[in-house]
């Protein structure tokens, strides 16, 4: 187990280990997405209050949650990079920021589309909406800071410090905007015992939930692999790989 984790820290091993994983993860995620979307949009019964509007939940909730999780991943990787100087952690931190930002943005957009028919407005300065928006700003700040540095190593260290400062701030920001204003419905229990929702509603949500998370990791892994090839372009193993690809083509 530890050996495996340790190996994952090396870009070359990460590349080799993920080669076989990507098609599987992509396939399973897409299948789950298709099943969840068809079931959720076509067959799940309409909500007694929101009618068919609620169906956007199948995309809105997983993308928002995954976007928040992505910031935690970014900050964890940043801390690992600062503490142990693990190259792979920095690569994942770098490539996961734009993906996480895109997920948060998607969560905000689907939320706005859901808000219009349900609350009568696209946007409101509610605690959850506001903290998601601020999380998007934090993502953008980390990306902008990294991009502003010419030196890759200084830029990655600076972005790591900012990501860690941000993650310390996130709970405080959430608490402060909650105190300030709140309108968003509380989280209701999605499924299982004690849930108000019938299984026809929550099972497709689990499908799309896992699909969205799976696709997040597909994007992060694919981008990491590109970044690995770029950073290690002068090493022998990348040259060999390139040679093999060229002879195959």
């Amino acid at each position, binding site marked *: 187990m530890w050996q495996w984790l340790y190996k994952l820290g090396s870009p070359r091993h990460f590349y080799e280990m993920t080669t076989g994983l990507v098609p599987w993860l992509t396939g399973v995620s897409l299948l789950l997405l298709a099943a969840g979307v068809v079931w959720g949009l076509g067959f799940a019964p309409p909500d007694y209050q929101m009618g068919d509007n609620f169906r956007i939940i199948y995309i809105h909730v997983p993308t928002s949650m995954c976007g928040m999780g992505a910031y935690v991943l970014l900050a964890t990787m940043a801390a690992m990079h*600062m503490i142990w100087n693990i190259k792979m952690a920095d690569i994942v931190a770098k490539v996961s920021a734009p993906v996480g930002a895109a997920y948060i943005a998607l969560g905000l957009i689907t939320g706005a589309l859901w808000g219009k028919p349900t609350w009568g407005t696209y946007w409101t300065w509610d605690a959850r909406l506001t903290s998601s928006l*601020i999380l998007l*700003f*934090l993502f*953008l*700040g980390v990306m*902008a*800071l990294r991009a*502003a*540095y010419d030196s890759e190593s*200084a830029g990655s*260290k*600076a972005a790591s*410090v*900012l990501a*860690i*400062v*941000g993650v*310390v*701030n996130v709970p*405080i*920001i959430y*608490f*402060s*905007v909650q*105190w*300030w204003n709140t309108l968003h419905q509380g989280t209701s229990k999605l499924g299982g015992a004690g849930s108000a929702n019938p299984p026809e509603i929550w099972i497709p949500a689990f499908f799309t939930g896992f699909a969205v998370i799976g696709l997040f990791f597909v994007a992060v892994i694919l981008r990491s692999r590109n970044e690995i090839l770029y950073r290690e372009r002068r090493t022998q193993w990348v040259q060999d790989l390139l040679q093999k690809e060229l002879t195959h083509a």
Partner: protein
Amino acid sequence: MSRSALGLAGSLGTTLQRELQLAFSSPGRIVNPLMFFVIAVSMFPLGGRMSAEVLGTIAAGVIWVTALLAVMLSMESLFRSDFDDGSLEQLLLSPQPLYFHLQVKVLAHWLVTGLPLVVISPLLGLLLHLPEAGYGPLMLGLLLGTPALSMIAAIGTALTVGLARSGLLLAVLVLPLSIPVLVFGAGLVDTALNGLPLTGVVAVLAALLVLAGTLAPLAIGAALRISVH
């Protein structure tokens, strides 16, 4: 006098004295943020024809956001000249603990840039028709909030001091992090205007100041080491 002969307190005193002397030798460092604060706030009533009541309700928010911008824009002078002439490197190499020196440095910077904003704020409240009950909470909030903002903004400044053009980037980094202080600072005035008890909000603001004052120097130090090397 050799540096090692100074104790911690002595060297912190020297740092404070040096920072204040530098600030007073170029009065622009003190006056510019203040002028920005007053001029920017007086733009808001000109931006739209608003009744006195409407102005009064947005006064706290306008003053707080402008104070936040003034603190952020004044940050340029915190590390820039020290970075350019190499004294920042000396500070990082000094045998004295960096943590306390950074605290003192930011404190000195706040004394010359943040404190004047607190002092002038009632005048701006007057310009924006802030109801009478709001003046005390506005000043108290700014007194607790602006040093916290200075600490937070100093992190962004330390991260960008090595970059050639850092102004806008600094805003992108610092503004989202300042939101809690802004929310509770402006919220303190609202709480007072609604006749609610202030103790809780004051306590949260004080807690944010303690948190920023103790944790930010760690991040500032790490950031400066990255910027200098």
